């Protein structure tokens, strides 16, 4: 068994799996049940001036019979009295000293930040997370993503927090920006010990086509909410990797967004996350999903020969580069395994209508499609639509050309192979 101990910006937890600041981390009883189930840390539901919430609050995107591949909410920060929250945090810390408890905060004025930080530290919490990310409701009041979208304000509030805090400070970033880098840098300049990302993405989840109102419907109206869940993982992974590979960005990342199982968590870690936070999947399936996350990560680390989880943090960063550095002479073509092919011709239609018209119906009865390898551009579309695992593989072609990127072609005149499928 590998060592799963995690250090994210000075916050230590027995494993990298933390509850994200959200309903699953709303109260002491919940967080304690989560720790009992195996979670290594919890970022408490954001504290600030307690708010009043609406009914209903959540919506979901379903696709092809799968419920809630994406999720959306118009919930605000905590609606519970601060005294109660702080007393519970202190209780959790007393009973679970080895687990990480991070207090998420969102207030307005410098004085409010000073007060709430002091009260948070007094609970014995392990760290703070500044919520600069909430993209609905709170931003209308000048907080949340309204802060996260302004690097100058972000840096300033972060520096206040650092000034008042004796425990590590993470800054939770919003993905509702064109480029994540200036925002990560602002947090770093403000002195943050790490960043958490992503918070939710501004969205309208669906529209009630009978009542002519977007969802989730609050009486006769609705508002835009925050998108999260499995569907947002690619956006979150990109932002995580983007910061992690930036040479000027040197503080740890807590990865969030669409983590549903150990695999997703490993992907975040490979792209630079030291810890991983989960909200939606816990809301949908419960704290118990962490058993598989811990076990799956352990098996993965053992199988790959890593002694500790920290060894994989950032392992895929060297493999994440600019388009201009990709090898244009690397050539692949689709190969179909005739043994396992079931003859659905999904690859045929996808290639004909959506790619390069080079997979053809079999003229015999066999219904194993024929790939015209001279025309196949190796795009992957057929492999993506094929319902049979490992039936279509993309096989490397030894075309005799030395590796050459676009940049090398422009700057050094490197020779490119002839284009395929471009007539």
């Amino acid at each position, binding site marked *: 068994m590998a060592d799963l101990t995690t250090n994210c910006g000075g916050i230590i937890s027995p494993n990298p799996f933390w509850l994200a600041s959200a309903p699953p981390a709303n109260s002491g009883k919940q967080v304690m049940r989560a720790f009992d189930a195996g979670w290594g840390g919890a970022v408490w539901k954001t504290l600030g001036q307690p708010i009043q919430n609406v009914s209903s609050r959540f919506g979901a995107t379903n696709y092809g019979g*799968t419920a809630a591949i994406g999720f959306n909410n118009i919930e605000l920060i905590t609606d519970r009295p601060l005294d109660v929250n702080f007393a519970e945090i202190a209780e959790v810390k007393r009973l679970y000293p080895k687990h990480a408890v991070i207090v998420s905060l969102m207030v307005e004025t410098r004085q409010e930040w000073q007060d709430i930080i002091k009260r948070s530290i007094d609970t014995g919490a392990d760290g703070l997370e500044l919520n600069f990310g909430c993209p609905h409701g709170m931003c209308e009041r000048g907080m949340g993503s309204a802060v996260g979208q302004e690097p100058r304000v972000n840096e300033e509030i972060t520096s206040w927090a650092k000034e008042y805090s004796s425990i590590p400070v993470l800054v939770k970033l919003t993905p509702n920006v064109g480029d994540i880098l200036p925002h990560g840098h602002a947090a770093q300049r403000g002195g943050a010990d790490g960043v958490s990302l992503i918070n939710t993405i501004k969205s309208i989840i669906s529209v009630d086509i009978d009542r002519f109102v977007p969802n989730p419907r609050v009486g006769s109206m609705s508002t835009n909410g925050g998108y999260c869940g499995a569907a947002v993982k690619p956006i979150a992974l990109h932002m995580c990797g983007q910061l992690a590979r930036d040479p000027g960005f040197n503080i740890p990342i807590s990865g969030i967004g669409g983590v549903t199982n*150990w*695999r997703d968590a490993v992907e975040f870690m490979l792209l630079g996350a030291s810890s991983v936070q989960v909200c939606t999947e816990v809301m949908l399936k419960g704290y118990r*999903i962490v*058993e*598989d996350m811990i*076990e799956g990560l352990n098996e993965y680390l053992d199988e790959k020969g890593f002694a500790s989880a920290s060894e994989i943090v950032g392992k895929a960063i060297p493999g994440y580069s600019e388009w201009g550095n990709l090898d244009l002479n690397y050539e692949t073509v689709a190969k179909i395994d005739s043994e396992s092919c079931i003859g659905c011709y999904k690859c045929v239609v996808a290639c004909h209508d959506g790619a390069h018209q080079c997979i053809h119906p079999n003229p015999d009865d066999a219904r194993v499609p024929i790939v015209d390898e001279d025309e196949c551009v190796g795009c992957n579309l057929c492999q993506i639509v094929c319902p*049979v695992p490992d039936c279509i593989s993309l096989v490397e072609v030894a075309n005799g050309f030395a590796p050459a990127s676009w940049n090398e072609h422009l700057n050094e005149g490197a020779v490119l192979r002839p284009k395929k499928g471009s007539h």
Partner: protein
Amino acid sequence: MSRPPEQRSETRFSDFKHAYNEAQALAEANRCLYCEDAPCIQACPTSIDIPEFIRKIATGNLKGSARTIFSSNILGMSCARVCPVETLCVGDCVFNAMEAPPIQIGKLQRYSTDIAFDKEWRFFEAGPDSGQSVGLIGGGPASLAAAHELRRLGHACTIYEKRSVLGGLNSTGVAPYKMKADRAADEVEWVLAIGGIDVQLGVEIGKDVSWADLESEHDALFFGAGLGPDRFLKVDGEDLSGVFGAVDWIEAMKLQDLDLASVRSAVVVGGGNTAVDAVRELLGLGVPKVTMVYRGDEAKMSGYQHEWREAKVEGALSIWRGVPTAFTGSGKLESITVAALNADKKPTGEASALPADLALLAIGQGKLGDMLGSLDGVTVEWGRVVTAEDGATGRPGLYAGGDAANGGKEVVNAAAEGMRAARGIDAYLGGDRG
């Protein structure tokens, strides 16, 4: 460990329920709702965390999936194949209430456990040596599950088995279209791999070794001897060649190569699961005419209806409300006299002759518990050894489980009771687990 011979009649069968490939397993696993407090778990006698092992298949954590299964049921591989899932876990899957196809838990469990066997994953180690030893009577599912758990708790184990193979009815009884004897032998080896289980084959307790010797040899005992021999009707002609007890015949069919070429018409007497299995086995081995003779009505037979429906599709014939009163023939069986019964199972006075050259009696098995009846503290009811929840008999240090204690249920019950008894024995021996 002795393995079954290559040449066996049972090898002519293929699996009636096919193994999943990866695509099928993933599609089915992703369909599971991951219910909380899931009814399927409650329906499993070993309480396997079904939603959890299925989710682990879906996430690609196959090792974890198998670990989840085996930690609740070390015989999870054979159970995946032989459990009557339609009446257990699958029967209680919440999808039934939606009138949607229930999750194929058995097939998913087979997928996971077969991979674990193929890859030779091992999940358990023997506990630190307790210095105490337990003797287990019988080498069937109950004793194997008990011995494995006892080894995890650090106790030395000796299994005494009167046959030349371990596995009990998993090796000698279950229908070959569910599992064959060689696969049962694989499981036995897999279980024994924990080490420290001494196996004494060909040793019959009560005959080769006395109770007194056994009790002085070990610190505790587990009685997992299953059921006794096939019952007979006690009517004329049962000693004719061609008349067999069904369980006996099934054992021969599973472990030997029988010549059935001359059998034109076979009769199976009984209406339980052994009878239905025997009917399907005879049909599968090419016997042209196979008739089940049962004293009750079709709706009242104790064999599973879903299995009997399949048997009918395969060509099974039946005589309801009938009972053989004589087996006749010169030297070997030629005909059976079948008396008609009324709804109260009383003879109507009518009788008919049924030509037959093979008859299998599947009217139940004797109970072995009687061999314990003379021991102080042991209560035997209808041949069944009475035990507390933890398998304890009234005699200190003597525990029982499986068919011998439950009167004849399924492999999974034997596994559950064996495991529970192991914990009971551990507590008795002063272990700190309870």
